[in-house]
């Protein structure tokens, strides 16, 4: 990443929020929204531009589940682990995804195309079980649907 782009990316987010108090989490959301994760160089740059210690930035980054420190896979598959989805079978669906992709929950395929995670309740419990692929919600999923869902993830 070029030095100038780095600074510019961060400067944009910082400028939008700089007059507001406690804006660190919102700025991190902006950065992750744009880049898919929060790279270390950006965190260092942010520390400088916001005059916030790096310690504080990483304390926050590692506390909140939402923030990623590593670049995301091309397709992020999240099984919802809310209570209704859990009861209606998300574990089985995740197992099926894992079997077909050859990875466990929390891992990424070696080619970087797919990662398998869980998310805690997106609030679509009436449509349980729910699976998100890159944020798009698929409802009333069954393990039989998994191959079809994977096939839809074309390059």
């Amino acid at each position, binding site marked *: 990443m070029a030095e100038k782009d780095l600074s510019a990316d961060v400067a944009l987010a910082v400028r939008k929020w700089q007059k*507001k*108090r*406690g*804006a*660190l*989490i*919102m700025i*991190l*959301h902006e950065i992750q929204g744009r880049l898919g994760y929060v790279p270390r160089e950006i965190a260092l740059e942010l520390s400088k531009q916001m005059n916030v210690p790096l310690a*504080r930035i990483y*304390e*926050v980054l590692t*506390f*909140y*589940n*939402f*923030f990623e420190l590593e670049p995301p896979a091309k397709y992020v598959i999240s099984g919802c*682990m*809310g*209570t*209704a989805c*859990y*009861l*209606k079978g998300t574990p089985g669906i995740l197992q099926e995804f894992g079997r077909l992709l050859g990875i466990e929950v929390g891992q990424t395929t070696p080619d970087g195309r797919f990662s398998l995670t869980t*998310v*805690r*309740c*997106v*609030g*679509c*419990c*009436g*449509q*349980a079980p*729910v699976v998100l692929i890159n*944020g798009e*919600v*698929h*409802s*009333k999923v069954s393990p039989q649907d998994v191959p079809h869902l994977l096939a839809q993830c074309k390059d």
Partner: protein
Amino acid sequence: MAKLQKDDLEGIIQRHRGSSRDWIAVGMGSCGLAAGADAVYRALEDGARERGLEIDVRRTGCLGACHAEPLVEVQVEGVPKTLYGHVSAEWVDLILDSHVQLKRVVSRLAVPEIAERLTTCNDREQPEPGRQYKIVTRNCGAIDPESLEEYIASGGYQALRRCLSELTPDQVIAEVERSGLRGRGGAGFPTGVKWRLTREAQGAEKFVVCNGDEGDPGAYMDRSVLEGDPFSVIEGMTIAAYAIGASEGFLYIRAEYPLAVARIESAIRSAKLAGLLGKNILGSDFSLNLEVRLGAGAFVCGEETALIASIEGKRGTPRPRPPYPSVSGLWGGPTCINNVETLANLPPILSKGAEWFRSIGTEKSPGTKVFALTGKVRRPGLVEIPMGTPLRTVVEEIGGGPLPGRKIKAVQTGGPSGGVIPANLLDTPVTYEDLAALGSMMGSGGMIVMDDQDSIVDITRFYLGFCVEESCGKCAPCRIGGRQMLTILERLSEGRGTPEDLEQLRQISKTMQAASLCGLGKSAPNPVLSTLRYFPEEYERAIAPAKANA
């Protein structure tokens, strides 16, 4: 819309009453969208245009009958208003041709069992027994959530108008106190008292905060209100801010609810343009600015002091109380934090009056409560009922009872902080006191139905696993106690328990309840204690036979 003065509201209402067109409403909450409501909506739009029909195709929020999404409601003159469920793009033609053009209801698509079991406070002043009574979700599914006009036309902002032009802040607080409204986030603390304490506290800056973190897995009441009726939450916050003397407010919404965030942000923009936020609201000298702040995946941030820390841009760890947020909260200033559902109750209370609200529900728990009824039940969805309604009514009459061939084993309320109500106690009225007496709690509104095929030990392990994952880690009892309990539960759910396990669970539970710093740790043992109380035999079965007979 130009900046409104308080007398402009009436004009909007009149204007809407005057125009009566046929309409089709499509439920476009997150559930509906997940089920494909967007395609249905576009198909209806295209279909209506192709047929040259004079009909409004509208987007509304979540009607609540989530099991039957996508939901479409049709109002055509000469035909009774009909709710259709499980609508797919293929059925759109049928609805347009048969219902709209030929004025014939498509009975096989209609879901009257839903429509006939609910009323709203916009239509009736009092609830009917055995039916949902919608106060909080009164507008969800009825209006376009992005239209300020429709909100005002359905009675919105009358409450704020009354407060700003007829009541002093102390009078507003007195009315809320009289109404008996209790915090709907789970604690049930009297809202009027919280407001009064914040008003009386010393501080140059005061804040109102909407707690939209809704972290309980399986609960999505707040999401539906934020998506389906954002203006009611904003109006509620504005009333709260006026009452306590705040000029700045935050809506803390979990990042997993992007649609809710978008709807609220849009509503804030519209409200600002119309002079309902910002300086001199409705021509008065009261001003308020609201901002959205996102959560980032931490259930603990639903706890008040952790929420404050999160808005301040820090790790979401709780602080010891006292001081309570009403005295010292955001950046040290007195802060009033209210749940979404609590806030959405305020416009009806302040426009229809405290006495009306008191007349609904029970003496100690007036009003209604929205529940997310999910799990092993025929008709999962959002249900709003007067407090005091028996649990059985909710689960069997409104919810349709267990799935075919199954029997209900228990109903879990209160999420990871709650407990189970076994099937033989289903006649319990739903109130704060009655649920607490059974070892459970009201909680934020999650209601999970479990049947004979579900393992009690497993669901307990699930809830405990949730608490362990979400523990902030600051205090030892929760951080380590939760983890040690989970290890035991894992062994039990694999049938490898030992007789000492149950005693260890009880001891650690007691320790966590007494010595945890916040509600998460204090209530994490609740599912364990509750299930041990009502389903001891399932735990006994989980102890490895060799060890049990030793």
